[in-house]
């Protein structure tokens, strides 16, 4: 089994350890990973801020780059949601029939990481070891756009040594929202404050998610407040083993 990793622009720049973890995890499971070096961004930031023309060029770029891939795996639920929910409208609005068709053929092979593991590889137990108390934050796009359901919990349940702590108000947004966190920084901060109350109440060591953008937001506040809790992408927990614990890759 082969897959092409779309790392996403911000993971590439800010969270390379997540990408490294995806590679190690998938290779451990016998998946051959390729990385197309000309990839950049899916266009989510531009689309969600109202820059539709710009988003279109990035969407087109994505389809052209991956149309021949066996499958594409993306460790970011909001970028997958951008591709699935917004690309069709963009291509239709611009009346580009070829692109629309190529996209329709590609999109069933585009996976968010937990989807790829459970639906494509067909495994819940990835052989991970992470002896820590962990709470899972359900990113809005993973929850309501991708309908990931219990996939992340099933993956976490099979991690040896890991203690899952449920998070109150799991379905409530952390307030990141991309440029929302800048344009409406005060409201975003108020939402984050409410989220932090729930996250800290778990007394977990780590808050994990399938989207580093939420974790950048939550983790940024945890760090600011010396709260004594860290954030970690789920890929890094799943890549973690006795021999190479996740901490060594941070």
């Amino acid at each position, binding site marked *: 089994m082969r897959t092409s990793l779309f790392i996403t622009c911000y993971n590439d720049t800010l969270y*390379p350890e997540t990408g490294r973890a995806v590679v190690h995890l998938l290779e451990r499971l016998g998946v051959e990973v390729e990385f197309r070096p000309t990839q950049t961004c899916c266009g989510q930031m531009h689309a969600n801020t109202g820059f539709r023309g710009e988003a279109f060029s990035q969407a087109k770029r994505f389809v052209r780059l991956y149309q021949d891939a066996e499958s594409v795996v993306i460790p970011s639920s909001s970028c997958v949601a951008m591709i699935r929910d917004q690309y069709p409208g963009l291509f239709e609005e611009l009346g580009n029939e070829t692109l629309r068709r190529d996209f329709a053929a590609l999109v069933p092979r585009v996976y968010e990481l937990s989807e790829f593991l459970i639906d494509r590889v067909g495994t819940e137990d990835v052989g991970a070891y992470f002896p820590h108390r962990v709470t899972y934050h359900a990113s809005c796009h993973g929850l309501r756009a991708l309908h990931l359901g219990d996939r992340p919990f099933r993956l976490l349940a099979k991690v040896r040594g890991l203690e899952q702590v449920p998070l109150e108000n799991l379905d409530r947004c952390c307030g990141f929202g991309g440029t929302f966190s800048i344009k*409406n920084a005060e409201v975003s901060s108020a939402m984050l404050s409410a989220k932090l109350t729930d996250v800290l109440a778990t007394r977990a060591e780590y808050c994990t998610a399938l989207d580093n953008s939420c974790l950048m937001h939550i983790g940024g506040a945890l*760090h600011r407040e010396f709260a004594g809790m860290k954030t970690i992408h789920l890929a890094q927990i799943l890549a973690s083993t006795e021999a190479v614990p996740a901490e060594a890759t941070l």
Partner: protein
Amino acid sequence: MPHPVMDPTLAAPFPKAALPMLRNTQLRKNVGHATDVIQAKRAHLVAEKTDWQQLRSAASAIRAHVLENLGPYLEQFESRCTAAGGVVHWAADAAEARAIILDLLRQEQASEVIKIKTMTSAEIQLNPALEAAGIHAFETDLAELILQLGDDEPSHIVVPALHVNRSQVREIFARRMGRTDLTDDPKTLADAARTYLRQKFLSIPTAISGANFLIAETGGVGVVESEGNGRMCLTLPRTMITLAGIEKILPRFQDLEVILQVLARSATGERMNPYTSLWTGVTPGDGPQRFHVVLLDNGRSSMLARPVERQTLKCIRCAACMNACPVYRQTGGHAYGSVYPGPIGAILTPQLMHLEHAQTLPYASSLCGACYEVCPVKINIPEVLIELRARVTDLERKQPARFLDPMFLGMRVANGIFASSGRFRAAQRLGRIALRAFTGKDGWIHSLPGLGARWTMTRDLRGLPEETFHEWWSKRNKPSSNSVSKETVAR
């Protein structure tokens, strides 16, 4: 608190209007508590309907069908309502609607009117226009009465005084009704309102209502409510004037079967609302003998032409979206500067204003999708928000002043960067060097200038790592690269 601004042409941009709300601890406590209670009731009653998703689909289909055939249905409504003894008026905008209603009230020689809760009358700012013409409007809905006596404005479309708690109600009643004997007990407060309102119901012969539905097939009008004040207004007066947006049409009487089921559950978390009033024209010897319907366009028909935005008009005003919204939860309704707050307001208000005002409202959302999930008529609010953001951006592109706006500049530069992987790699390297100056000894950034300060005001940001994923991958997969064991250690 200063008096809330509910006129989108005068309201401050959302981020600015939200600030005093965020600082108001009492308001945030009230809004959080009230939305929690309603949401829990809704969730309980939705869960008991095993066919909830089918009901949603049916309700959505009915409303979509109406919008695709609105013209013929409105004409059908007009002819059936007229045949039943009603008089139908058409108002292109708020000013025309106000003029029609004022004219009707003058014909009635009315100096006072009683009102059932109608958000549409707030949309056209009817009460101030009535006051200016020497006509006093008495709000008879308990929440609207509280707001009117407290010189306040609605912050929610179903529970307009959601931001007020019972101690505040007691204080308002004591001050405005002279009732210093009241306690915080809800029953005592409701009794006080009842005593105050009963004389109005019995003495004022002219009433104004909104409408939940206009039934095309029968020419009938429907109002749902919880308190019975509406039933009083609909039966006791001599003259009834109903103001309704043109989108309130339902094709058939039978459609109520679906709509009433989803509306009550979504709005108040009840299986059925306590009072559902339906009337058709006039009936000699029973109820109002003069009946007028004012059909309001006020920007609605312009929304019909746009396939994505059109769904906004499917709304049946249940307010489930605002109860579920994490933004509304923090700010309450007044920050939206319109009688329509929350997610539905964020898409409806700018469109009613033809995007000339309320341009910050489509950005007043983290696009979390909680609104879409609870919407009983499946309005994809995030999709409409993004559509409106694109239209606002297209308008702003034409403004020379925006050319150097940091957000615009950043978006244009980013687009150039993402168009080429070479430029993207160069930008990553440049960013790493540039951010070094702001990165502390702990490897984190605590303070950034410019737009970045909007982030670092409450959050740190981890400094950029020395190696991007792309760089790591290139090194690892160089044909000349060393053994696997060495690479594992470097991991």
